[in-house]
């Protein structure tokens, strides 16, 4: 089971770039890395997914080093609406025990 470790919380000012790193030392060959965002009183929602190197979409970038033992979610120019909890999920093929962890609570300050 590939468990993950993330910082519990982070603060950032509006307009700054935020990088949240997740450690997953026991990641397996077939595992993908997925990040979710959760606002209060809502279920998590998908942000980005990757397997190796770099992935970019309209909201974020995901950096994965060659050893894949960690990954970094990068949010460019955050706004107040990006205040949320961010979860890193490493899921195995045919996973039957998915570990979301405690997530990182990002607070964006005006």
């Amino acid at each position, binding site marked *: 089971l590939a468990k993950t470790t993330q910082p519990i919380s982070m603060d950032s000012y509006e307009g700054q770039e935020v990088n949240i790193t997740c450690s997953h030392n026991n990641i397996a060959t*077939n*595992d*993908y890395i*997925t990040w*979710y965002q959760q606002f209060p*009183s*809502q*279920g*998590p*929602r*998908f942000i980005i*997914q990757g*397997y190796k190197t770099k992935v970019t979409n309209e909201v974020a970038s995901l950096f994965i080093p060659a050893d894949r033992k960690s990954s970094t979610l990068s949010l460019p120019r955050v706004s107040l609406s990006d205040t949320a909890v961010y*979860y890193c999920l490493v*899921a*195995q*093929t*045919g*996973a*039957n*025990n*998915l*570990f*979301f*962890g*405690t*997530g990182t609570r990002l607070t964006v300050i005006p």
Partner: protein
Amino acid sequence: GAGVSQSPSNKVTEKGKDVELRCDPISGHTALYWYRQSLGQGLEFLIYFQGNSAPDKSGLPSDRFSAERTGGSVSTLTIQRTQQEDSAVYLCASSWGTSGRETQYFGPGTRLLVL
């Protein structure tokens, strides 16, 4: 189409009572997941279903918890003889499959309060 729906949205019950929580996944999604989230905590995986296959129940916290999925669609999570520590938000998610790379789509959750 419609997203994942859950009912009820809120449930208040007395200790010792049984409760049933319902999840309607996105049409066509073969995989369905149940999670529990205590106040201020992360998501605790409970159980998942893949199509009509028997679920893996190893994540359920006690034998008071059970879940079923009828016809490969709607799922019900049942908690018998509820305890105060069962108070939490119960989240359901569905996906096209369980390959590990499938995006999970979450419902709004059911907030359970056991008095």
